């Protein structure tokens, strides 16, 4: 473990820094990352065309189960990964955010398809121009819709991210995105990932 070179955020900084050099904690960190990598349970969050391809990726030809991902959790409380598969409408956006908030840390988001990533070809009143305005996105999968192979590549990229990232990445720092949410007294800026 070469933990000296990187800053360990959150948990390890709160009085446990010295331990990060320790063989035991270093190995434990590796173990936890290994476990998280191999047990990413996605939330069933299908929206549009991409959802079909997402489900197809779970089918016999592609089989997400190989990564231990066939366990799509219907309850966001038990899910680790939200695959935003499809276009997010203005009406759906608050619901999406709510489901993201209901997920437990650590959680990741894959923005699947161009509509989720940037609004795609639907640059109009109805579609949120990029889901990263609502939730912090870890991996963007391009395509309209991305083929299952693309989704699998995105998932492998996410695995890499989990492997090389911080153990307690989001504590306090968040994605640093500021969005305006409509409160009862007009727009309220909210920094995502805090609190």
């Amino acid at each position, binding site marked *: 473990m070469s933990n000296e070179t990187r800053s360990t955020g959150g948990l390890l900084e709160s009085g446990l820094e010295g331990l990060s050099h320790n063989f035991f904690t270093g190995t434990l960190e590796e173990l936890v990352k290994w476990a998280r990598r191999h047990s990413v349970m996605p939330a069933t969050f299908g929206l*549009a065309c991409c959802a079909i391809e997402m489900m197809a990726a779970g*089918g*016999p030809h592609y089989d997400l189960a190989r990564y231990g991902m066939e366990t799509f959790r219907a309850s966001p409380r038990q899910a680790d990964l939200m695959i935003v598969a499809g276009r997010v*409408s203005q009406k759906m956006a608050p619901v999406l955010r*709510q489901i993201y908030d209901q997920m437990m840390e650590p959680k990741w988001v894959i923005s699947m398809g161009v509509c989720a990533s940037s609004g795609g070809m639907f640059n109009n*009143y109805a579609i949120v121009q990029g889901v990263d305005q609502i939730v912090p996105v870890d991996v963007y999968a391009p395509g309209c819709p991305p083929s299952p192979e693309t989704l699998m590549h995105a998932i492998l990229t996410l695995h890499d991210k989990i492997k090389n990232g911080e153990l307690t990445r989001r504590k306090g720092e968040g994605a640093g995105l500021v969005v305006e949410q409509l409160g009862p007294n007009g727009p309220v800026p909210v920094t995502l990932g805090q609190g």
Partner: protein
Amino acid sequence: MTATHELPTNVNQTSEGAQELTSAGVVAAGERLRELGAVLRLSENDALLAEREQVSDDETMIINMGPQHPSTHGVLRLMLELQGETVLRCKPIIGYLHTGMERTGEELTYLQGPTNVTRMDYAAPLFTELAFSLTVEKLLDIEVPERAIWIRMLMTEMNRISSHLLFMATNGMDLGAVSMMLYGWREREEALRFLQEVTGLRMNHNYIRPGGVAADLPDGWRDGVLRLLDMLPPRLAEYDTLMNQQPIWRERLQGVGAITAEECLALGVTGPMLRSTGYDWDLRRDMPYLAFDQIEFDVVVGSFGDCFDRYAIRLAEIHESMKIVRQCLENMPKGDYRIQDKKVTPPPRARIDESMEALIHHFKIFTEGFKVPEGEAYVAIESPRGELGCYIVSDGSSKPYRMHVRAPSFVNLQSLPHLMHGSLVADAVAIISSVDPILGEVDR
């Protein structure tokens, strides 16, 4: 939706406001009658019955299903009023996938149009492209070449097969037969392979365009079709063994969510749902488009209008589509795959290298698009879900003045309150599944 979402205290957070299903005691008698009768007129006798059925609020519970729920096929949201496990009332709430496609369609040229509409019914994208193209061709008053017609038929029927296979998969999943889901995906993948060979894309093909199709069938396409035609019958027989011959499956579907032909007509319900009631109506045969009048096939009808009939009809329609595909294979004429009308069709690639005019022409068609004479037209086709219509108003420019798609799922969804009245929660899932709504098409 799970967790915190369904409690009335949180209603305002989702900004649903008046779309909320209010408890039975508050609802005015008239509205209650409408809901109970699923927007059908009730007889005096029925009205009295409904009056007597009034239950106190203490016994019922309003529960929210969706928009994020494993079996609402995407983002359909249902408010259910339950008494125990029995559904008393149901209100579908849609719009969670509203994409503004009809508005976007007004901003795109006629040539770009199919790219837009293909994303509506993402299980059967070629059908929306076909409806759009046929409408534009009607406005232009042009006839596409024979070969284009037959290619369109071949491709849409292949798409119908893949769409129905998708239904088999999701229907199985909703009833807890997880293996069926995986088998459905397996076969669908084979159908998609052919579509990909021809169009280059697995979904959202943008293949059928005004004036013909985007490209000719590739070499060896016959092998692709034959492979699928050989592969499917034994697999469908497997479905038959796995599902139809199994008591639990029949028990779960037979007699559930029954609807009559009169109710279907009143609600505007079309497609397999209408046919499941025994009403013999299929646009391919009764108001033929393309070359369906030259083709032999049977219109499959049910007799009880229940979930099982809707399932069985779709299974049988796969066989019928295979019949049609086989005939397309035999009768495929030679010739152009798109109309050789300078106004509508870009010049072939080879000519662009040789001629400056061709290059300019090509450029003009793809930037400005072609102009369509003023007028309006409505063309309907039979999609896997019912009558899929496209209504276009042209003001003489190169973009539609108004483009409206009559989506079968949108209309079919209206039958949900009626189908669900008095059923159980588990039936509710089976009923949603058997209506086979594609939310992209519902919300557009």
